[in-house]
């Protein structure tokens, strides 16, 4: 792969929206994770343009069962080149972004972008005490993150992602005791079993969103923050 990159190949994060490539909701069942729908749509969209050399599909404990099944389907029924990989790295790289006082949206962007890009030069990350917690994967709709105060710490798989240990289930289950935490999951995601039961265990708020956050979901999170923190948003 290194050779391909040195020869000018580009790497795309298929989880993320690609400019000019709207998600075509035609490849997977309706009731399916919207992130994986985006991944598959991006794959076919890049392939249509003839610009797809290889799909690197993470299929181990580091990702989710859905991608393993999708990778097998693509391998069996298409000519799309698939490289199945597993990331079982157990050596933590730290998670200063997750514990910093940056706006939650900014924190999430930095973590997601850190897959390919180093942190920006001059970025200082000061740890803050958590007022609130956000547990889960990076959401399809980042707008949800704007509802939270800056002193919100990130937990769950996103923290594992920053730590470069995405298969660390123990870390994924960690939350800050006594800190009001929203347990977020994409609808139709297998990790919703985690989110649902961790929310019950810790007295947090279980939130499930398909694509874009609804009015009800927004109001539910706002109420949770208002009841627990007296927080009424960045107004």
């Amino acid at each position, binding site marked *: 792969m290194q050779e391909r990159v040195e020869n000018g190949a580009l790497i795309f994060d298929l989880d993320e929206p690609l400019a000019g490539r709207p998600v075509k909701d035609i490849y997977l069942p309706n009731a399916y994770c919207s992130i994986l729908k985006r991944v598959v749509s991006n794959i076919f969209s890049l392939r249509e343009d003839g610009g797809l050399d290889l799909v690197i599909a993470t299929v181990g404990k580091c990702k989710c069962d859905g991608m393993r099944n999708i990778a097998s389907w693509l391998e069996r029924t298409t000519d799309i080149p698939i490289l199945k990989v597993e990331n079982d790295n157990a050596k933590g790289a730290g998670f200063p972004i997750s514990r910093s006082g940056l706006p939650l949206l900014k924190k999430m962007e930095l973590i997601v972008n850190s897959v390919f890009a180093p942190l920006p030069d001059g970025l200082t990350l000061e740890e803050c005490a958590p007022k609130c917690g956000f547990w889960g994967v990076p959401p399809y709709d980042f707008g949800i993150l704007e509802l939270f105060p800056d002193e919100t710490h990130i937990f769950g798989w996103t923290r594992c992602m920053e730590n470069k240990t995405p298969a660390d289930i123990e870390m994924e289950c960690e939350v800050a005791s006594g800190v009001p935490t929203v347990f977020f999951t994409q*609808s139709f995601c297998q990790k919703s079993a985690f989110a649902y039961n961790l929310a019950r265990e810790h*007295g947090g*708020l*279980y*939130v*499930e*969103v*398909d694509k874009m956050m*609804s*009015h*009800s*979901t927004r*109001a*539910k999170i*706002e*109420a*949770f923050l*208002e*009841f627990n923190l007296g927080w009424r948003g960045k107004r």
Partner: protein
Amino acid sequence: MSAPSPILLDCGTGYAKIFNLEDSTRAIVPARRFIKKLSEYDIKASTGHNLSSGAGVRVNELVALAEGSLSMVDEPDFTVLDCGARDVKYVQIRNRRVAGMDWNTECGAFAGQVVELLTRYLDIEPENLPSDAPRIPVVCGVLGMTSMFDMISKGKSHEEALAGFLRGVAFNCETLVGRPDRLYLSGGLCDNKAFVSAFTRETIPLGRFVLIEGLRKIYSEKII
């Protein structure tokens, strides 16, 4: 032209609940009709789905529900469930403070508009439903309705199938709130006796103005 009436407003998906601050009267009108007559009102404070602008001070629906139920229920510990047209939500009160809350945000299966649509479609009075119909699992509104019409195709009466559907909705609501011994009910479905009796625990309807009572408390105390 007369001056706009000062009101407190709970504008839900289906209906607008109005409290007139001048004469302390209450009214319920379809939301679609109310929205067309906005200029007739001076909205001092509001809650609910259907008014995103020009609505005075906005209060979160769950906050209004908590405040309203606290002003209507004297017990230190209780649970109140609001069944709206589009979704259901609840707050759990312990020692007169909010200790828990949740909101079914995605699926209309729980909610009043599905019940209202079905009741109208089948042209059945809720009062005429049997009380011993077996519960239909309502995983989601569409799947629940599919099961209901399957029952009818297998020879069950429309009344029995609808009653089973309502029991399925009530079961989902009970799961959401954690099955307390006693449950207070808010919202339009308080008026549906078949729905209220579909619960398997003591269920006490508080009526359709609980959120309005919350707004009144918040507005009078100027805590917004």
